[in-house]
């Protein structure tokens, strides 16, 4: 693993990029890209330390201050802090479930969202569901720690349907990866 920056969050990220599939060619190329461009610390929140969560308003983005944990078919559900697109929860899928007939992208962009209940930050993989006409339900466009295209892994404008049968965009899920 010496190719990778030892930053734990970045490592997790790269594992998610591999996505449990055997797309080693893609991983190798991406690894090369990230190494050539220094991997920067993913985000301020990851430095906060999981032991002492800061629940003060000053530590929370506007999204996090208003986020709820009850209804995952609403744009303000806590995990959706950096989602852009139609919520699969509204399209016949679920928060980590593609709607019937869609294909889950093996790679994704990621967000780091604060759970209002424990005050901790979690890494979320926004996996697009692909290969079907766009679902037009529950369109959201959240922006916490969303970066320009030159930091693609945190960019939510890209259609993240890499490695799927077709790259037609259907909807987006928010898969829990773990503590940030």
């Amino acid at each position, binding site marked *: 693993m010496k190719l990778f920056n030892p930053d734990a969050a970045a490592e997790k990220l790269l594992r998610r990029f591999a996505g449990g599939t055997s797309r080693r060619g893609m991983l190798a190329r991406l690894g090369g890209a990230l190494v050539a461009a220094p991997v920067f610390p993913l985000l301020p929140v990851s430095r906060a330390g999981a032991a002492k969560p800061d629940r003060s308003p000053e530590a929370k983005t506007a999204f996090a201050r208003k986020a709820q944990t009850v209804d995952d078919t609403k744009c303000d559900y806590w995990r959706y802090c950096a989602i852009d697109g139609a919520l699969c929860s509204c399209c016949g899928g679920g928060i980590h479930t593609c709607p*019937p007939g869609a294909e889950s992208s093996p790679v994704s962009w990621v967000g780091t969202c604060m759970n209002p209940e424990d005050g901790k930050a979690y890494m979320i993989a926004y996996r697009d569901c692909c290969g079907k006409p766009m679902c037009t339900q529950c369109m959201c466009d959240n922006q916490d720690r969303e970066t320009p295209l030159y930091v693609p892994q945190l960019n939510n404008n890209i259609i993240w349907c890499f490695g799927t049968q077709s790259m037609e965009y259907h909807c987006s899920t928010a898969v829990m990866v773990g503590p940030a």
Partner: protein
Amino acid sequence: MSRHTSQAFTLRAAAVLIGTVLASGAQAAVPTEPETPNVATLASPNPGWFYVRGGFDTAGTQIVDSATGKMVGMVDTSRTSDMAVDPAGKFYYVSETIWSKGNRGTRQDLLSIYDANSLKLQTEVSFPGRLIIGAQVNNFAISPDGKSAYIFNLTPAASVNIVDLGKRKFARNVELPGCAGLMPIAEGLVSVCSDGSLASLNLSGGKAEITRSVPFFSATNDPVFDAYNYSVRRKEAVFLSYTGLIYMAKIGLKPEVAAPFSIQAAAGLRPGDTKPLDVNWLPGGRQLTAWHHASNHLYVLMHIGEFWTQKDPGEEIWDVDLSAKKVVKRFPLEDHIDNIEVTQGDKPKLFVNTGKNDGYILDLATWTLGPKIGAIGGGIIATVEAP
């Protein structure tokens, strides 16, 4: 390889979903354990579902559960395609035309077959061609036994292309000169023709035989809408004319059409007329009638206008008791409605939608309109009979 991966995910999904359901009861237990992405499967075609097409120039048919008003899935209907449901509920059939480079390249006319539960594409059957039109009812139908698909073609000469669904191969093309629309019967199909007759196509022999009924309407003076309602099980159809005459018909090799009655007269008003300056309540819209077979009620989109407003959207829904030949209810609409369809169960609900892709569910038990369902699609609506 990706397909293989999805199937593995599906197996794991059951456990994760159970976990989620249990968790949502307890406040503290917002799930934070790492999850594995998966793909949902869909229940079999359900008489409580509405299949709602996107607007003209958009793709996808959203499936809406009439009980909740929520989307449960989407059938991959490409633009200007037609969809039909296997009578046995095992497949969705999409009759579509796709150019190999979007707006150019090679034309491909395909009958695409999707598994009704996985919604995965099973196969594609090529055939010689089909009518391309902003999606419209009655241009694509499955035979009552589920063994043949009938695809209306217009070049602009009219014909029907028949696909053998058992062999999953194109079978033959049969001309339907001067007719349009497809009502499948055991022996073949019946179509409505420009001379005011019904044409019955007997496909049970080696050579297709076409016979025509006595004309019962005038396409010049008062045509019947091509978005008529047909029940394969009842072998009956209901036709409505531009002025508002309702014709009930038995459909078969020798169709029988009853004398019509006026929808306006059935509501205690003077009948519709074709004359300019004659303002009346008139039928209009795209898919402008819905027929609940068991109760024999017809729901019609009506608006105020003169003749030649047959595409104007509905300002009211009129509930016609066809057996009694009476309008028993008039329901005013705030939004102007293009399309209407009804579920066929014993507690029927209507779905109506607008040119702005908004939809509403109307519970016929109480005549209460549900909340607006946005971005649901402005195209035609389908329902299925109980399997």
